[in-house]
């Protein structure tokens, strides 16, 4: 149970941090695409003029045209290392970073860019980013639901284990009750067992999950491709996973205690 909860929690945390990183990486940046002209020299001149214009535009912090080598590196996962990118009719790209908090009228800038280099367009990534965010949030929600379901199953499991133990030890319970043990005293005997049971199971589950996550991490690293960036858990997120046995144990303890107290109320 804890193994599943740990995997679900890791997935939720990874998605959350990936989402945050994507949004941070892409917000405040736009890309200008310049279609190739008949002569590459003409294209180079258009790109240079656009870069000059963009650098002078209020609100723009930096503008940099991507070199052919950089473009080739970006396209390598799809086209291979040996592809001659320069011979392909690819648009030239200008990476533009906006100043934080700056309000830039992108449609006006886009119109001006089109004047300078007909066919050039601005891509602010928002459409693509919005779809990516929606998809990631759906996965994140699924992960949270799975985590919630696993937690609910854990609680129900502890409840039935406690009821079973109470049934097995009913004569002992009756005797303690007869001797004047309070409900709290009797409940403590069960919650102690549940705490140990929860801690033990929790550690084993988290350990198994850690092994699985490290194996996945290694397998993903072997891919060595920018198509699939390798999400990694931060130290804080590993810490959250490490805390799972304690959370599990406390939940088990409280569930056992509540179960016992409710059952004992039926005794005179």
């Amino acid at each position, binding site marked *: 149970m804890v193994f599943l909860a740990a995997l679900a929690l890791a997935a939720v945390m990874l998605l959350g941090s990936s989402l945050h990183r994507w949004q941070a990486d892409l917000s405040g940046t736009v890309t200008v695409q310049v279609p190739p002209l008949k002569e590459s020299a003409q294209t180079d001149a258009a790109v240079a003029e656009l870069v000059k214009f963009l650098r002078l535009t209020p609100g723009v912090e930096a503008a940099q045209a991507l070199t052919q080598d950089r473009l080739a590196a970006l396209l390598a996962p799809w086209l291979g290392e040996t592809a001659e990118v320069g011979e392909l009719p690819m648009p030239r790209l200008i990476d533009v970073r906006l100043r934080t908090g700056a309000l830039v009228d992108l449609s006006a800038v886009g119109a001006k860019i089109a004047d300078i280099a007909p066919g050039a367009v601005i891509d602010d990534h928002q459409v693509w980013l919005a779809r990516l965010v929606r998809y990631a949030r759906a996965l994140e929600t699924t992960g949270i639901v799975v985590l919630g379901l696993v937690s609910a199953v854990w609680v129900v499991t502890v409840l039935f284990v406690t009821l079973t133990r109470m049934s097995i030890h009913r*004569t*002992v319970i*009756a*005797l*303690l*009750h*007869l*001797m*004047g*043990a*309070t*409900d709290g*005293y009797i409940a403590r005997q069960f919650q102690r067992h549940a705490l140990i049971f929860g801690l033990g199971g929790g550690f084993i589950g988290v350990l198994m999950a850690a092994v699985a996550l490290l194996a996945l991490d290694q397998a993903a690293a072997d891919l060595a491709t920018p198509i699939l960036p390798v999400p990694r858990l931060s130290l804080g997120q590993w810490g959250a996973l490490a805390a799972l046995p304690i959370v599990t144990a406390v939940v088990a303890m409280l569930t056992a205690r509540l179960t016992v107290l409710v059952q004992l*109320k039926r005794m*005179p």
Partner: protein
Amino acid sequence: MPVVDLSGVRLRYGNGPEILRGTDLVLTRGSFHFLTGSSGAGKSSLLGLLYLTMHPTAGAVRLFGVDIGTEPRRRLPDVRRRIGVVFQDFRLLAHLSAFDNVALPLRIVGTREDQVRANVRELLAWVGLGDHLQALPSTLSGGQQQRLAIARAVIAQPDLLIADEPTGSVDDSSAYRLMRLFDELHKMGTTVLIATHNRALVQAFGHPELHLEDGVLKLASMNEHG
């Protein structure tokens, strides 16, 4: 103030016949009574009312001046701790040693462990089990187990000692030894009520006899010393 005061108590299980029909019972402090009656007369049920494992269908149960019917449930453990109970089937915890069985009532109330050790050793020696501290109940004879059960029932110095057929599972000689234990406890000031169908014991020890028949409790006889 009487230790036990039952007034007009009635008891019925479900829709069955009345086990107790308007029972009145007063046990004064330091008294010793036998409770007799044929099998199925309701002796165990009456005792169950006294050690609070059930509530009457009607009537009032007062123990140590406390009206059990109106006392909040969370305060009933305090009343239970003033009552020691001995059963025919001993009801010892099989997985605990003799020492730990007897220590249980003290540990429940949080007695310091050094005091627990001292009191339990002394009491086990008194009941003749000083050499069996670590013995499991299954390794003891019937008589020894019952003495162990008596020790557990009295370790916390209860005001009221109730025994339900305490000699039912032991031989006659053990039965007499057990009864002498009860007598000793009574001499120390404990109020004692013993349910038994052993007429020989009742006659031998001569304490007042409360007879239960057809759901009605009567004082059957008083001994000369009564």
